[in-house]
């Protein structure tokens, strides 16, 4: 197969083989031009350090107008194709379905062996009747399969007629078996492709509705049933950033100019930080300077540990500086909160979906929500309230599992801290995390906890069989093959009603209890 031409881009398919794979597709030409599942000619080889066993998760970004998609096609894709060309050209035996290419040093191709056999035995080589449905499957047995047809080397006794016939028969059986497998595989791939097309069609039609109908009438329509239902299905990636921005709002009235101001402050600080000897500063100004420097150090440290498998936030990666800027500006904007681990993941997801200044505005406003503020200020007593409210709904929705966890004294902080701090962007595949963010923007903090319960529900049967350490291990490292359909159907089944009280009411009454409790006896954090 020829390398994909760099331009014009009728179709591009960029796959980064990683934990959270971004796949960017722009599809304007007819789908039949597409190669079959997973066989895009330009599919790059996984980066060398990438563990191959990592599951692939995909975020489809369809349609034009997405700045992110354009970014990829402009920068990433062209660069990658150039890098890849030699690899593609040097692989002449590259097979359509990813079979091991026959190496050049192999003595004989199986077809040749087979033909030789036909010639020797006088039997006509009848190519297997091509399946009517799958004409494009070019089946070719592995080279070693046909070895059974070969005559024995001269120093060994020759095959008898019966033996040769039996070998012929065995060979045919092996071929038939392998072919059946191939066809089955091909059908599976085709089905997946069909589902993907369907999904992309849905996204495309949803995008039209979002762009033409909803966004121009945002305030009037955002709360309507129709919009809320469409919203639940997941936002088309091209409008995702816009809808997030609108839904998060800008209570803090941050302007792009303000962002620039804080960014330049952050830059000054970095400069002075790298110029001065840090030890002197600690002596001079005490803990606050040390903290601030620790915070700058920490940002630097964490950026490279944010979605490491995407290779875009790491040093030298395209979004490294951007992530640095947004986080740095935030620590200048909110020195009272500063930088807290977990933030880099949130900022990164926003950067993937929004322009720089908009990402900052959404970031600052998002972190200003009560739940996020409680967590990022590490307000322990407030966090315990959230955990307690979560447990109310946990017991209501999954009583059996709730008791099981209780019996091991497995408290929600063990798994919820990671989930809430990063808004699931570290724990779930990125595309799925984005869908959670979509509905989080619609429903607010309660959806974060509802998602947590959805995850517990999805894995309830497995978790019920596990003991403390296995549950803890499982929940702090969720399976990578979790699918959005399954998860969202589990989330949908979670009722956020506790004896007619909704999340906000349950939470409020817990807060009230706390105040009354404070009066009666000294507050002892129940942890």
């Amino acid at each position, binding site marked *: 197969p020829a390398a994909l031409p760099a331009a014009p881009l009728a179709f591009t398919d960029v796959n980064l083989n990683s934990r959270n794979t971004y796949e960017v597709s722009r599809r304007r030409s007819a789908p039949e031009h597409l190669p079959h599942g997973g066989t895009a000619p330009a599919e790059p080889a996984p980066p060398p350090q990438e563990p191959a066993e990592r599951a692939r998760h995909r975020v489809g970004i369809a349609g034009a107008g997405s700045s992110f998609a354009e970014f990829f096609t402009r920068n990433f894709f062209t660069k990658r194709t150039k890098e890849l060309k030699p690899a593609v050209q040097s692989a002449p035996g590259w097979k359509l379905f990813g079979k091991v290419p026959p190496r050049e040093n192999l003595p004989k191709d199986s077809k040749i062996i087979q033909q030789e056999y036909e010639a020797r035995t006088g039997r006509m080589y009848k190519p297997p009747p091509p399946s009517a449905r799958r004409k494009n499957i070019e089946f070719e047995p592995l080279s070693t399969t046909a070895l059974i047809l070969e005559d024995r080397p001269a120093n060994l006794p020759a095959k008898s007629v019966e033996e040769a016939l039996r070998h012929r028969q065995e060979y045919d059986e092996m071929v038939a078996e392998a072919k059946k497998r191939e066809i089955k595989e091909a059908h599976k791939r085709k089905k997946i492709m069909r589902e993907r097309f369907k999904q992309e069609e849905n996204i495309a039609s949803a995008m039209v509705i979002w762009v033409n109908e909803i966004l121009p009438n945002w305030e009037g329509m955002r709360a309507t049933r129709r919009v809320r239902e469409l919203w639940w299905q997941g936002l088309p990636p091209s409008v995702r950033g816009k809808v997030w921005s609108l839904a998060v709002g800008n209570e803090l009235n941050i302007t792009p100019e303000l962002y620039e101001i804080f960014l330049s402050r952050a830059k000054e600080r970095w400069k002075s930080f790298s110029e001065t000897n840090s030890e002197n500063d600690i002596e001079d100004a005490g803990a606050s300077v040390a903290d601030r420097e620790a915070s700058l150090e920490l940002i630097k*440290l*964490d950026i490279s540990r944010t979605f*490491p*498998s995407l290779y875009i936030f790491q040093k030298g990666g395209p979004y490294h500086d951007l992530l640095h800027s947004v986080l740095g500006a935030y620590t200048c904007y909110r020195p009272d909160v500063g930088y807290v681990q977990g933030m880099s993941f949130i900022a990164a997801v926003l950067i993937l979906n929004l322009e720089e200044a908009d990402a900052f505005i959404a970031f600052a406003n998002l972190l200003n929500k009560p739940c996020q503020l409680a967590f990022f200020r590490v307000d322990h007593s407030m966090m315990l309230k959230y955990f307690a409210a979560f447990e109310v709904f946990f017991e209501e929705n999954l009583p059996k599992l709730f008791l099981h966890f209780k019996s*091991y004294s497995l408290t929600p902080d*063990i798994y919820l801290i990671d989930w809430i701090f990063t808004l699931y962007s570290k724990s779930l595949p990125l595309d799925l995390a984005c869908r959670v963010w979509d509905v989080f923007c619609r429903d607010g903090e309660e959806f974060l906890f509802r998602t947590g319960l959805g995850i517990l529900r999805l894995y309830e049967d497995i978790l019920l069989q596990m003991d403390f350490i296995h549950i*803890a291990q499982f929940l702090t490292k969720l399976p990578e093959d979790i699918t959005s359909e399954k998860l969202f159907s589990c989330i949908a089944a979670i009722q956020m009603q506790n004896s007619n009280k909704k999340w906000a009411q349950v939470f409020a009454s817990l807060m009230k209890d706390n105040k009354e409790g404070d009066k009666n006896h000294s507050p002892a954090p129940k942890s």
Partner: protein
Amino acid sequence: MGSAEEDYNFVFKVVLIGESGVGKTNLLSRFTRNEFNHDSRTTIGVEFSTRTILVGDAVVKAQIWDTAGLERYRAITSAYYRGAVGALVVFDITKHQTYDVVDRWLKELYDHAEASIVVMLVGNKTDLAQAREVPMEEAKMFADNNGLLFVETSALDSTNVEEAFETILKEIFHKVQKQKQRSSQSNTVSLASESPTSTAPAQAERRPCCVAL
């Protein structure tokens, strides 16, 4: 003995603490899975791993809690020390600051854990010897003065990782054995975590802390 594939005599809960970025997660992954990840992700909250090793005739299951290093998180992570019988306090030999705060980590630890907890000071990243900022003698002396075990490791090239965990697990084991002898004399304390039976393998899991030292 246990009925499942997991037969063990003891469960020891060990916590990994120390500043962010010193390599706690990689030490753990090197020990439990023999893996090192150059691009490991920031730990938020706590992560878990286990590995079973043989100490003498006893099968010891190490249940290791890998905590987030961020100072701000300490309020929430301190609860994780409860029931720990061992702790690895990790610093980065190429960053003096991570060594300077070992004192604070120890204080934090002793505030929340049993006084008898076995603590090991671990200077990690010996593969970066050319960038060393903390002399080995200094750290060793600090450890001796504070009654800590001490080892220098490299999660990257595997140096001493196995030894570090084995040493601390053996030390815990010996403490437990001594405790056992004493308790069998006085006949008061029972080690609930010992020899989980098929009916209650969970008990040891649930309360790894019940190996009271």
